[in-house]
């Protein structure tokens, strides 16, 4: 009688995770989510054309604010909506059972799904950034040509003006802002995944995630109030403490407003902010696994 040796399954397989991520991305792309890019391009080109009558500082600033604001809305919505549907859709289609019937640990399934959303967000952010950079660069080039023609008689004034146009236009700090928008979207995706592990429906998950988004932007105010103490009653203190401890501080990733205003982010500060964002993502993913591992499917 011959015995077949039992093949040892690796504890964590990046190949399996990658396969699930790729599949998730394909499914999401099939939902035609990239149509929003057309809307984004319209927002950018429209705001650029509308602001031509203003000074170049005002024009560039509105262009940057509108683009980065639209990027924040689109990525946040995409992160919440795409993630909220992941588990319910897989349960409804029975894909989840097919996958988990195979030797795929639940953690790999969760990480793969989340990675798929991260990839979708990355493609979206890259596409939006490319559109935005092209429009801004084109306008900057036009303004620079106008300035050069206008101030060609005075080299000193020309140098100052050119520096002003460049400072108001495309600066490297903008990309740090874009990276933080992406990080915030990833954080929201991981948080939505956590909610969806115990939620009863996709609508519930979406509503909770949107509420968390709003409260997350107020968390720092609640935290400041709680830590300052003051004359607040115990009920207020408990309430603000709970908000501070339960909700993430999303304002920490909102540096883009000040970046557009001309603030440069020191690399160490940028890395610290990214580090905290990654800590959030890791915790929410592990917490999602904690619930999902024993979830009755």
């Amino acid at each position, binding site marked *: 009688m011959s015995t077949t040796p039992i093949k040892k399954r690796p504890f964590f397989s990046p190949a399996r995770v990658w396969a699930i991520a790729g599949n998730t991305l394909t499914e999401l792309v099939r939902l035609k989510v990239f149509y929003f890019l057309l809307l984004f391009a319209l927002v950018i080109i429209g705001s650029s054309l509308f602001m031509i009558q*203003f000074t170049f*500082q*005002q024009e560039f*600033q*509105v262009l940057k*604010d*509108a683009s*980065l*604001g639209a990027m*924040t*809305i689109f990525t946040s919505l995409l992160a919440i909506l795409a993630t909220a549907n992941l588990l319910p859709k897989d349960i409804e289609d029975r894909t989840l059972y097919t996958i988990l019937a195979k030797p795929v640990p639940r953690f790999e399934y969760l990480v793969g799904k989340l990675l798929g959303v991260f990839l979708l967000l990355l493609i979206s952010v890259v596409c939006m950034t490319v559109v935005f950079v092209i429009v801004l660069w084109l306008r900057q080039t036009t303004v620079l040509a106008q300035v050069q023609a206008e101030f060609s008689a005075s080299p*000193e004034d020309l*140098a*100052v003006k050119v*520096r002003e146009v460049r*400072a108001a236009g495309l600066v490297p700090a903008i990309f740090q802002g874009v990276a933080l928008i992406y990080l915030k979207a990833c954080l929201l995706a991981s948080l939505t995944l956590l909610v969806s592990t*115990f939620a009863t429906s996709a609508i519930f998950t979406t509503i909770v995630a949107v509420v968390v*988004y*709003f409260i997350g*932007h*107020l968390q*720092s105010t609640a*935290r400041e109030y709680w*830590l300052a103490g003051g004359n607040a009653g115990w009920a207020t203190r408990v309430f603000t403490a709970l908000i*501070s*401890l*339960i909700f993430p*501080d*999303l*304002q*920490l990733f*909102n*540096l*883009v*407003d*000040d970046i*557009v*205003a*001309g*603030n440069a*982010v*020191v690399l160490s*500060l940028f890395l*610290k*902010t990214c580090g*905290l964002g990654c*800590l*959030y993502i890791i*915790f929410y993913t592990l*917490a999602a696994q*904690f*619930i999902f591992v*024993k979830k009755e499917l």
Partner: protein
Amino acid sequence: MRLAVLIFLVLGFGLLRLPLETGLEKAHQAAFFRTAKLDLSLRERIGQSNFIAALSGFRAPIADILWIQAHTAWEKTEYGVMARIFDNVTSLQPRNFYFWDNAAWHMAWNGSVFAFENPKQPRLAIRTKEQREFFDLGEDFLIRGIRNNPDSYQLRQTYALFLEQKRHDECGASEQYRLGMRLPGAPPYMERAVAIHLARCPGSEKVAYDQLRNLWLRSPEERKPTVITLIKALEKQLDIPEEQRIYKSDR
């Protein structure tokens, strides 16, 4: 049961990240990030929906929309409305020097001229008083702007221009140029402006002459017509010995 454990885990994570968040927030504020104070008075001024949008991370686009509203008010010469909108815009985006700079410009230059030449007001005393009020409004924007943007040479430059043109304070203008000339990105003419305005500041002629002389000696690029005229005038006024003069007298 698992949900109860999860709540404890989330609270524990909250306690763990509390010092990290507080520390990072302080570091952000030290680097002039998140300095906008979104309080209840701002909510009353900009409205509930704008305030919620500003709180949700759309502070900059809301400030831009308000700025465009101010531009419309300018076209209708509604300077009172403009002042109110500028106050809201600068509260939302205190780190944007452009808003402070333009708000000050509209108030101290455009608004003041409009008030002084107001055809509906026949009394000169009232027109002059209103003009001064616009000067004060403009100066207030500049002072608050500089407080929020101590690294902006542009605001120092506009403040110097304001002191020179509206307050006729050459000493103050020179001081503002001096404070601005070392700031990041400051153009070379700011150093020249320090000396030029100092030359018109009573009692500072000797210091101004030394600065102008140093500039003249430094590079031919600095020998602009104003510099040359002032050097000649100061050499005469200060009675500089003939052999030490840059421009010999035509005796």
